């Protein structure tokens, strides 16, 4: 009896020790999440119902901030459309290009490692440096792009001050900057596709295109789905490139929701309204993600 209870106690002590060890391992991340993410997020929700210039006591304003968004703010619809327009330009382009590059760099070619490095380099470049270089490339009079166009007899345009071309230019720079990151993830996805599937397809007489269409794309769909979600979230949060390259101009043609949130909160002293806009952004991203999660069963293939 004594021996049994002693053994049980030892067992309990061990289990308890393991429990607390586990808790300790979890604590840094959990506490960090609670303190630096969850609490500020909940505080921002509360603040969206207040007027607060960042100092002093916030004044309760009910739904006024949300009302202002849809009825009193002349810029709101413009920045919302800019954000959606950028997402429509960025997401498909970055996915197509990174998949293309992923396919290229997984082939057994001489010097493929160098290409991998070169394609990944822009990811390591700072946004400020990239923005400055592209400002020069896109310059109307002294830019590289227009110079090259003139060499082949074409007339360029003022890429960054033409309202029709400025957002595609911003999207292009973002794609250039991020394509390497997505390429690496696609590469990992491509390398995990079992080789026998391709061998079987080849034996059945499948061409390269058919192998791509019926083996690669379905087998890569979980990776594609993951990148679709993350690239969409990234695009809705666009800030750095716009801030460094165009400052939101000209005439607000590139002002996006996040740059506007910064303007409103930190430059115009309307933290409450900024929080309301942030929550709208959260809802938009949530809805888009939820729709994609719902639709994934129709095209994402997790099993072989």
């Amino acid at each position, binding site marked *: 009896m004594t021996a049994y209870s002693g053994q049980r106690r030892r067992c309990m002590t061990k289990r308890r020790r393991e429990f607390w060890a586990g808790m300790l391992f979890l604590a840094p991340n959990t506490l960090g999440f609670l303190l630096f993410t969850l609490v500020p997020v909940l505080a921002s929700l509360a603040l969206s119902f207040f007027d607060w*210039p960042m100092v002093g006591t916030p004044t309760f304003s009910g739904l006024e901030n949300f009302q202002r968004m849809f009825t009193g703010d002349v810029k709101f619809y413009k920045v919302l459309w800019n954000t959606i327009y950028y997402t429509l330009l960025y997401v498909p382009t970055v996915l197509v290009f990174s998949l293309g590059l992923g396919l290229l760099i997984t082939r057994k070619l001489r010097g493929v490692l160098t290409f991998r490095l070169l394609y990944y380099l822009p990811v390591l470049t700072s946004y400020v440096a990239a923005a400055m270089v592209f*400002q020069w490339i896109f310059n109307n009079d002294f830019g590289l792009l227009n110079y090259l166009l*003139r060499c082949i007899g074409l007339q360029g345009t003022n890429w960054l001050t033409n309202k029709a071309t400025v957002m595609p230019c911003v999207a292009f720079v973002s794609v250039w900057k991020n394509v390497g990151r997505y390429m690496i993830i696609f590469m990992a996805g491509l390398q995990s596709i079992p080789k026998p599937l391709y061998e079987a397809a080849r034996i059945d007489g499948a061409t390269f295109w058919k192998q791509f269409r019926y083996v690669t794309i379905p087998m890569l769909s979980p990776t594609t789905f993951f990148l679709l979600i993350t690239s969409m979230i990234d695009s809705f949060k666009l800030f750095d490139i716009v801030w460094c390259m165009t400052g939101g101009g000209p005439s607000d043609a590139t002002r996006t929701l996040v740059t506007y949130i910064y303007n409103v909160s930190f430059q115009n002293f309307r933290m409450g309204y900024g929080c309301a806009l942030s929550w709208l952004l959260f809802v938009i991203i949530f809805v888009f993600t939820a729709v994609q999660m719902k639709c994934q069963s129709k095209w994402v293939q997790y099993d072989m």
Partner: protein
Amino acid sequence: MKKVLCVFLMMAILLSVGSVNALAWEVNTEVSGEITYLTWGEPSRGDSMQRIADVFMEYYPNVKVTIDCAGDNFTTKFMTLAAAGTPADVVLVNELYGTGYYCNGMYENLNTFLEQDPEYKAEVMDKIPDDVKNVFYWKDECFALPTMNYVFSLYYNKDMFDAAGVPYPDETWTWETVRDAANKLTKKDENGVTTQYGIYFTREIVYEFSWFYNNGSYIISDDRTTCDLDSPAAIETWQWMQDMIHEDGCAPVPDTTAGGSQLSAMSFDTGNVAMQLFGSWMLPTYETLPFNWGAAPIPSKDGSKPGFSSSCPNGFAIGKGTPYPEAAWEFVKFCTSEEGQMLIAEEGLAQPTLESVMYTDAFQKGSSIADMDLIRESLLTCKGPNAVPRWNEILQNYISVAVDNILIYDADVETEAKQCAEGVNQILEEIQQGIYN
């Protein structure tokens, strides 16, 4: 006779310097505290301020000053600290945005400090021109002390002027001379592509204020209640700039720049344009430009009055709610005093606001290329902006829109100017009612 005049002049300078020296700094152990000074700019700016703080701490051994150079994160950091109830004790203040911060409760009102320190008021504040220090007053309340100043000059590329055989700009230049020279300095290649422009106007109006000021338009009226960007003078200025871009083609369509920067892929420093108004904060950087350049006075509108520069004074404010207001006040005072401004000039941080410092070696060494006598003259005759709260909103929602439409898209000047002034006036009306955000 000349010798006598020289002696008189030297005596006068010595006397004026001597009179400022009445505010002598002595070791003070009564004031204590640990204060942080928050600034923007590159890290070297923080290092320079640390050296100034070290001298201050020799006078105030019980005060510890920490320099926090937040760089591009300045606004976010300043606001976040204020929101958290732990404001920066001393903070660098921008001439256009400071009023907004003050009205939204970020800075202390310095009137009481000034009233309790009549010696400082008489020896320093009263000697700084009204057009410089008024920037840091809102409704007779002082919220910052003008510690440094920057003025604009017409920077010109001597190599381009020499090649085109155009005489260098000087104090006799008017807008007509500028336009004429800009046209002569513009070059095109055999395909009709412009390879060199005569002048460059940015799409940031703050850098073009001097043109408006010299035509009698001050953007915001002196009583800070109305916007005059639709006045005949302002419309004439807009039109003059627009014509040079879209009619003459001697100025490029302004490029997009980020964060209100004056630099772009085609600004003066790139060597693609012959002339541009630039602020004196660029003097140290311009020392290394790979071409010969000079700085000339701001051209007069029509020669009837000498041209003068708009200015960008920077001040030091005390963060609202600092636990060490006395220590902060002493530090702000020190940096604004002659000794502090001398150190600022020696470190090359900015130009001073006190005239006495403008005759020192430290000031003269501000540039080995630009004529520092000209910079001094500009500092003594310049005018700071009529700053109002909600400047960012005014700029972003109305003025920048008008600038883009007029200068980039060649829109009708009168219509744009009227729309812009209407919008700004509406905000100014709200400000009069005490709506500051």
